[in-house]
């Protein structure tokens, strides 16, 4: 991609992916030409490039990209992720997004306050990464590289601790001196004259106590706000700087020029400047302490990574750092040790606790050929395994990456909140100006009385004039209206929610996935392999007269050499019941009918009605039994020995243990549940009735599943599709939320916005509960944040003054503002103890009750 300037217009070259023919060229040219501001477009199929001449004032790269993607192609952009330091509020987010987004070659930018990261999609030939970083620095923020893994975590912790330490020192200075200033100001009142020396109330002493606060701990607000302001951006720091600066300015004037008309020596407000700074810093400090805690889930995951591995090389067992393990290395694991990387067991037997990765509480047995997951805990036995995935490819690394990425993204609800907060600062300053003008020209003359008080302070505003009074209210409005809580409301909850999901083996691919999951109305389950186990098994054995075991044994003998799935199910069923079928003397498959076998002179038949009719075997009452079984969706096979009917063996795909409970829980949550299958309607309905499915989408070919999802969406419903992330990929992609179940360890390959690590349908329920809880938390936080502003602004504006003659002081405004930020962060931290209700009732991985079902065909 490249860009050149031609007389006010610009020329850009876009790399377009997905073009295959001349009509693609025409489509892209047409789509781009339709954009207002695009003057000329030439698309080249051979190079896959589009040359566009346009007016940058009327059309942006993002518009072009959208136009191309709307018709099914893609403008290829690079993605960069870096850390932005110095952000404190939602307006910082908006400022950075604006500064980066305004660059010519930037297609999309997402800045996250909680993770302090920016994700930028850009055309490197038009705008380099260095230019993007420069744009951020120019508006007063810092840029650092994102470091992943443990190193990144250490760096992040180090930075946070540095910030905590910095704010703590500031808090100690401003708190100590501020308290002295407060005591000094109160010296003439109440009981203070008894133990506070009079000199502490001297305004010059107060000046010397307050000045180090304003220019020490308070300096950060002036420096940061000026950095932004000179580039045309405003943030919370500006509100603080204006508030602190104005209070300090008045105090200094009234100290050294008491007759200047600003209220005189009795209205110095040193405590306002001092305590305002102290309370803002208190808020910053508490925020720095609590913000780190919302990313605990990632930290816990990172800690799981084993440090050492025991590898067998040249017949020798050597201990090496886990990151040095290579693919195909043979590793040994002893009881009680963590498994260092992903692999396949080659030797030995053990049970492994996988709860830390899959959320499954019961240890899983592992034998040769089974897959083991790195970072899980070996319990009982020792075994050897071959490494299949190491370093950044292990399941744990993929999970960490996915959770990190999810935390960088922005939910639609957050985009609105950020937009509002971004405009808020300007609005607040405009409001402060309005408040000043109103109280200066109108309010003061109408309502001011010399008995006026500042709320929660002992002194009266007797000597204050119109300017001083209007000025206090104006400064209070600036401080009290600060929307700092708004910036944290959503990202902190999203971080907590995505981390909570990961704890239960539920991975959300982005904040939008969490929000979409919380709004679902219909859940469609794929049948085979999702609702059912995906392999047939023996469900019923009926003997005409006599022993059921003998019926099953005969059937198993006949099918012992069969490769048919139903035959394999019968042999497996017999073995599970302790019967080892003997080898038949002869075996004959009769296509479309069944099988015939000879055993020690006995003739065994196993098959359908046709086979029995052809061999003239009377079935009598077995026919009724067979019909009953078939109505329940099972495949009934008749067994005959030496020309006489012996009984029936019924085989069906069985429901997973948790299917019925999951459907019941989804109903309890008010969701409609549907099942999609290639089975015939009778069979499908038989299964659906056993689990309580509301809607059956039967006889759907695999390639038409996405179409069925679309039909439901056209009814205006928000639809989730639960299925195999690979086979059901098109349907998962079509759904509003695709939920890939039982993904195992190769998470990156999965389609779908939600990935369930283990094969348990209750995780679908748990995922929805986590998503709903997260979005509920977001809404609560936004309510607290905006609710605070809604109540505080009129209060700060002096709405109550005409009735009570009391005004909110700037320092009280600062305390209220800090409390609002803290309430949001603490509310989010409540998520830490959250357990999805379905998991409170049923521990992860626990088999709750068996719910056998049946099927004759597979989807």
């Amino acid at each position: 991609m490249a860009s050149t300037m031609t007389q006010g217009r610009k020329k850009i070259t876009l790399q377009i992916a997905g073009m295959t023919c001349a009509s693609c060229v025409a489509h892209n040219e047409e789509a781009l030409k339709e954009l207002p501001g695009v003057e000329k477009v030439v698309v080249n199929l051979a190079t896959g490039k589009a040359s566009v001449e346009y007016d940058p004032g009327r059309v942006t790269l993002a518009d072009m990209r959208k136009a191309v993607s709307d018709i099914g192609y893609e403008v290829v952009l690079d993605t960069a992720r870096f850390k932005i330091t110095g952000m404190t509020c939602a307006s910082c987010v908006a400022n950075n997004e604006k500064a980066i987004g305004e660059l010519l070659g930037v297609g999309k930018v997402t800045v996250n306050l909680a993770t302090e990261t920016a994700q930028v999609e850009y055309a490197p030939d038009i705008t380099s990464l260095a230019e993007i970083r420069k744009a951020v620095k120019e508006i007063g923020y810092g840029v650092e590289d994102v470091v992943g893994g443990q190193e990144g975590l250490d760096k992040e912790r180090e930075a946070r601790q540095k910030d905590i330490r910095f704010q703590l020192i500031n808090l100690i200075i401003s708190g100590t001196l501020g308290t002295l200033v407060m005591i000094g100001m109160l010296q003439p009142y109440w009981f203070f004259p008894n133990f506070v020396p009079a000199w502490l109330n001297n305004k010059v002493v107060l000046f010397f106590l307050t000045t180090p606060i304003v220019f020490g701990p308070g300096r950060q607000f002036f420096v940061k706000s000026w950095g932004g302001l000179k580039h045309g951006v405003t943030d919370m720091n500006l509100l603080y700087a204006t508030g602190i600066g104005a209070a300090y300015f008045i105090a200094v004037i009234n100290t050294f020029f008491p007759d200047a008309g600003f209220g005189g020596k009795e209205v110095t407000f040193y405590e306002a400047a001092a305590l305002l700074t102290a309370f803002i810093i208190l808020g910053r400090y508490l925020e720095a302490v609590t913000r780190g805690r919302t990313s605990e889930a990632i930290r816990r995951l990172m800690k799981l990574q084993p440090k050492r591995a025991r590898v067998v090389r040249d017949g020798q067992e050597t201990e090496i750092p886990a990151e040095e393990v290579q693919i195909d290395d043979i590793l040994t694991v002893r009881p009680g040790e963590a498994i260092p990387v992903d692999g396949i067991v080659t030797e030995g037997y053990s049970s492994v606790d996988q709860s830390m990765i899959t959320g499954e509480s019961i240890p899983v047995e592992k034998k040769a050929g089974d897959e083991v997951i790195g970072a899980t805990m070996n319990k009982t036995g020792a075994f050897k395994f071959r490494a299949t995935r190491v370093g950044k490819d292990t399941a744990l690394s993929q999970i960490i990456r996915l959770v990190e990425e999810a935390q960088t993204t922005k939910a639609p609800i957050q985009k609105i909140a950020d937009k509002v907060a971004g405009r808020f600062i300007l609005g607040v300053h405009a409001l402060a100006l309005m408040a000043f003008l109103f109280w200066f020209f109108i309010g003061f003359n109408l309502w001011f009385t010399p008995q006026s008080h500042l709320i929660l302070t002992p002194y009266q505003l007797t000597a204050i004039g119109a300017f001083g009074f209007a000025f206090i209210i104006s400064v209070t409005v600036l401080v009290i209206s600060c929307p700092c809580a708004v910036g944290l409301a959503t990202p902190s909850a999203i971080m907590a929610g995505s981390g909570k999901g990961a704890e239960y083996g539920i991975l959300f691919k982005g904040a939008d996935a969490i929000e979409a999951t919380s709004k679902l109305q219909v859940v469609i389950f794929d049948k085979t392999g999702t609702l059912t186990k995906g392999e047939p098994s023996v469900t019923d054995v009926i003997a005409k007269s006599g022993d059921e075991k003998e019926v099953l044994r005969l059937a198993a003998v006949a099918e012992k050499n069969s490769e048919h799935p139903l035959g394999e199910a019968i042999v497996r069923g017999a073995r599970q019941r302790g019967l080892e079928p003997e080898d038949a003397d002869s075996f004959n498959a009769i296509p479309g009918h069944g099988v015939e076998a000879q055993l020690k002179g006995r003739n065994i038949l196993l098959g359908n009605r046709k086979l029995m009719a052809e061999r003239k075997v009377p079935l009598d009452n077995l026919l009724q039994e067979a019909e009953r079984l078939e109505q329940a969706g099972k495949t009934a096979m008749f067994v005959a020995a030496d020309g006489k009917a012996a009984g029936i063996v019924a085989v069906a795909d069985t429901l997973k243990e948790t299917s019925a409970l999951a459907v019941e829980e989804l109903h309890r949550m008010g969701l409609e549940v549907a099942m999609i299958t290639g089975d015939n309607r009778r069979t499908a309905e038989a299964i659906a009735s056993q689990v309580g499915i509301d809607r059956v989408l039967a006889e759907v070919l695999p390639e038409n599943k996405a179409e069925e999802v679309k039909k439901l969406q056209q009814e205006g419903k928000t639809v989730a599709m639960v299925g195999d992330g690979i086979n059901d990929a098109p349907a998962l992609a079509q759904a509003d939320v695709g939920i890939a179940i039982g993904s195992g360890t190769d998470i990156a390959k999965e389609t779908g916005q939600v990935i369930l690590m283990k094969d348990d349908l209750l995780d679908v329920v748990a995922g929805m509960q986590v998503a709903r809880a997260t979005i509920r938390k977001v809404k609560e936080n936004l309510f607290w944040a905006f609710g605070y502003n809604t109540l505080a602004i009129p209060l700060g504006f002096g709405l109550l003054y005409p009735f009570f003659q009391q005004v909110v002081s700037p320092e009280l405004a600062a305390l209220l503002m800090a409390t609002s930020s803290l309430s949001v962060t603490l509310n989010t931290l409540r998520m830490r103890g959250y357990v999805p209700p379905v998991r409170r009732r049923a521990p992860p991985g626990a088999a709750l009750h068996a719910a056998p079902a049946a099927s004759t065909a597979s989807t």
Partner: protein
Amino acid sequence: MKNINVTSAIIYTGISLLAAGLFLLATSAGTYTIVERVGGAAWVFFLSTIILMPIIIPLVKRKLGG
């Protein structure tokens, strides 16, 4: 870039000065002290500048193609 900054500064300072001037004019109708008038005008100028800077700078940037 320098051109943008200067142009923007002229515009927002000009409008803010105008706002402060209007404030002074309005105070002439009342019985305000000189300090109240000047102090008030300074505060109006200051807040107006803060309000206008983030509006004017991007506008000028867009106009001058920065």
